[in-house]
């Protein structure tokens, strides 16, 4: 079990957090740290790319929700990139599909900031 977290600046003044592997009760603190660091640095428009994520649980969802709440306080937002049908299902079931922008690729997720 493993998580990969890769942060990079995109062209559109947004930051992309690229995640890979499994986000669960063990690995989600690492995801939270990466997102918290970006927000603390004053970056409020985030793309979180879940394309390489095979698994996410409620603690991972909690980290994403927490991040969204914080950036919204600064007028920012979190857009997700997600294509895995199992993970999309989780966002559907929980109704989180209504509070996050969910896109099929990074281009779409970044355009949404414009």
């Amino acid at each position, binding site marked *: 079990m493993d998580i990969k977290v890769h942060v990079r600046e995109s062209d559109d003044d947004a930051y992309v957090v690229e995640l890979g592997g499994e986000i*669960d*009760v*063990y690995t989600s603190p690492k995801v939270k740290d990466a997102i918290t660091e970006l927000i603390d640095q004053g970056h409020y428009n985030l793309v979180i790319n879940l394309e390489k994520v095979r*698994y996410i*649980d*409620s603690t991972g969802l909690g980290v994403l929700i927490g991040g969204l709440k914080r950036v919204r306080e600064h007028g920012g937002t979190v857009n997700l990139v997600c294509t895995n*049908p*199992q993970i999309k299902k989780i966002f559907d*079931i*929980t109704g989180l599909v209504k509070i996050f922008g969910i896109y099929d690729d990074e281009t779409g997720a970044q355009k949404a900031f414009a």
Partner: protein
Amino acid sequence: MNAAAAMAEHLGTVELRIPSKPEWVAVARLAVAAIANRLPFSVEEIEDLKLAIAESCTICIQHGAGGETIDMTCETLTSHLRIVIRDHRYRLRATGSEAARAGAAPAVEGLGIFLIQALMDELEYSIDPQMGTELVMVKRVGT
């Protein structure tokens, strides 16, 4: 239990005990996937089971009575998989769901419980920081 379940054949029971710590939840997830493989579940249903057992372990770790281990019993029948997850040797009374809910009010109605409820066909649970945690869940074959 309906008539079909009553006629179901018992295939075997697997028991698993892991330390009540985040880094061990993946073991429960992979073990339940291997167990579920004994039944004609779809890939999607097996993913549901993995998430449900992981959420249960997470609840034991975060809201448990500080038990050192999480114990899981996975009963495999031709008609369904029944999983009991417990923390700290606490056991649901035989009367089941009614009794559990009538007893100490569950401490959490969070995202984890919500997901388990959505992904499994049956769920009974009791979450109590003093008594411990127990969840009993059923996933039926071919529903």
